[in-house]
């Protein structure tokens, strides 16, 4: 059903939430190792796409297909998609009071290892890896002991998302505005986090509003998502164009056609 050498193939996807159609005929093909940036106006459906791909409850697929490494993604449970290597860094990370970051992360890593038929990681080994990950995203090690996102600042939450990505080592990382609300240093941290993880068998979808992040990350492709579909794709230079001109010129064009026709 998909190009055999693609990691992710989305074909003519339609999806809705609360009976409201949000994704309206979306196509996207991502090969292993590629970084795709998705930009687009507020409310275009970027976060919705991330949720639909991860299988969040309440988001229903009305048409089309999605394959992850040849597997029918839409048939899989949320947790199975994660175990198959799909990772979503949330635009608005949620708190889980009383559950320590370390406990949460180890449980996640172990669940994924178990799905692969591997033994649970030892606590000592995991702690070592987690400490390294903390350092990479520039969070104090004490954050491992704190409740998941509990009382974290906006920027700390974003770094925490990135730390989870580092430990889970997914195949497909969807970063939903991980750069929003970050100070300049943090932006670099995120960019470095992504760049350090770039490899031939890991792909990224980076949702962002700012071309600035893309200066650091240098995507292979930039797409504009508007009103539920991709209306324009290009290389990294497209981000500069968007920064200069906004999205209006992309949205208006078809509307005028319609008027004339």
């Amino acid at each position, binding site marked *: 059903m998909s190009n055999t050498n693609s990691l992710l193939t989305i074909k003519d996807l339609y999806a809705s939430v609360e009976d409201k159609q949000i994704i309206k005929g979306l196509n996207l093909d991502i090969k292993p190792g590629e970084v795709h940036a998705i930009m687009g106006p507020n409310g275009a459906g970027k976060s919705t796409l991330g949720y639909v791909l991860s299988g969040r409850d309440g988001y229903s697929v009305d048409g089309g297909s999605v394959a992850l490494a040849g597997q029918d993604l839409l048939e899989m449970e949320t947790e199975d998609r994660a175990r198959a290597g799909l990772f979503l860094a949330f635009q608005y990370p949620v708190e889980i009071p009383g*559950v320590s970051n370390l406990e949460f992360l180890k449980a996640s890593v172990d669940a994924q290892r178990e799905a692969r038929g591997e033994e649970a990681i030892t606590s000592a080994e995991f702690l070592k890896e987690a400490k390294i990950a903390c350092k990479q995203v520039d969070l104090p090690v004490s954050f491992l002991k704190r409740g998941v996102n509990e009382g974290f600042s906006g920027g700390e939450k974003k770094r925490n998302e990135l730390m989870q990505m580092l430990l889970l080592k997914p195949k497909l990382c969807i970063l939903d505005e991980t750069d929003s609300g970050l100070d300049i240093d943090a932006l670099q941290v995120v960019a470095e986090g992504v760049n350090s993880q770039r490899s031939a068998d890991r792909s990224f979808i980076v949702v962002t509003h700012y071309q600035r992040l893309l200066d650091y990350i240098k995507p292979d492709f930039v797409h504009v998502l508007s009103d539920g579909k991709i209306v324009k794709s290009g290389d990294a230079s497209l981000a500069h164009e968007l920064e200069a001109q906004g999205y209006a010129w992309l949205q208006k064009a078809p509307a005028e056609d319609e008027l004339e026709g």
Partner: protein
Amino acid sequence: MTEQIDKALAREYEAGFVSDVESETFLPGLDEDVIRRISGMKNEPEWMLEWRLSAFREWLEMEEPDWAHVDYPKIDFQSISYYSAPKSMKDKPKSLDEVDPELLRTYEKLGIPLIEQQMLAGIAVDAVFDSVSVVTTFRDKLEEAGVIFCPISEAIQKYPELVKKYLGSVVPKKDNYFAALNCAVFTDGSFVYIPKGTRCPMELSTYFRINEQNTGQFERTLIIADEGSHVSYLEGCTAPQRDENQLHAAVVELVALDDAEIKYSTVQNWYPGDEDGKGGIFNFVTKRGICHTNAKISWTQVETGSSVTWKYPSCILKGDNSVGEFYSVALTRGRQQADTGTKMIHLGKNTRSTIISKGISAGKSNNSYRGLVRMNPGAKGARNFTQCDSLLIGDQCGAHTFPYIESRNPSAIIEHEATTSKVSDEQMFLCRQRGLDPEKAVSMIVNGFCKEVFKELPMEFAVEAGKLLEISLEGSVG
């Protein structure tokens, strides 16, 4: 999400099996004659029988309480059998090898490998199987320290002065309907005495188990910590699956004399009934402790079982500077109903109490916290802090909070905090997106919610409690 929760909760009760130990059981019914027979079976002295009979007469005059936020069919006290004993008790076992292997297997199925785990953990176990104590270990070591830990029936024979002095001293015979009934018909339970200045060398632990059909179980526990002594007592129980409701009305009395400390921990996992609440245990317990000068009593409980729970472990802070604590996790699911909480009665100066209550409701259950903090006129400089948190799983359950505050001393300080939260779809999604299955996700979120209470439990109990919540929540995830 609710659907998944329900599915996970629908899992069959793990401890729902009946072990086949032959039992000698009284026919159902309750009158003075039954009480005389119970007393006779136990070879009790006359004063004990008189005590029981006077309680019974009080009970006959009393009304069953109906103020709790629970709803259950009227109990027919004449349809209950008031005594049952495993047959193999006739010749008392001298060692564990002599214990009915079926009995030991029962404990093992419950994850309580009596021999391996408890002995290795250095815990003396006074196992109450139905109404008679079957196994008592580590007696010698405790004796060396001067600690008395034995069935209360034995204490009545061997230490009548202590029993006479303290039995009913904290919970008076006519304190409440179920307590009065317990006084009349209690069959066994534990007795603990820690001598002056002694630190009990090990955690004392009792596993209760209701096993006979139609048998009301009425334990009686009395713990006396003499001046400057210290003891930690663990109570845990589960019951096999049943069709008829089983009544359980225990009374626990704690006496902490000057400078003494008692830590009483409970993990309660009785059969909660089927999906419709049929067949579960009715648990109407009276637990109360009295603190003398500088003494401390700490109640920690993890309640996951029973179909109806009515339970308020309380502290009377009589002595100056005494301390009362109550840490509670109460989980209800299916059609379980729990009305639980505590009473902190501040009488002495500078007395302090802390109440941390965590209520978790899932399915169609109802979970109520009911707490009384009373500052009497003499409670100068007394303080209470109460934190009462409710967590809802799904949208068909209920959480209720009934705090009662009575302050008759203007220098006393009472603080009360309450929150209600839900296991949110966002939290579930985050967990599942990281690869956790829904059941693991819920149990982790719930465990996090309970953390402040779990850290008060003794180590081995804390692990067990976490596991218990996990098992209890299976099927409740959606």
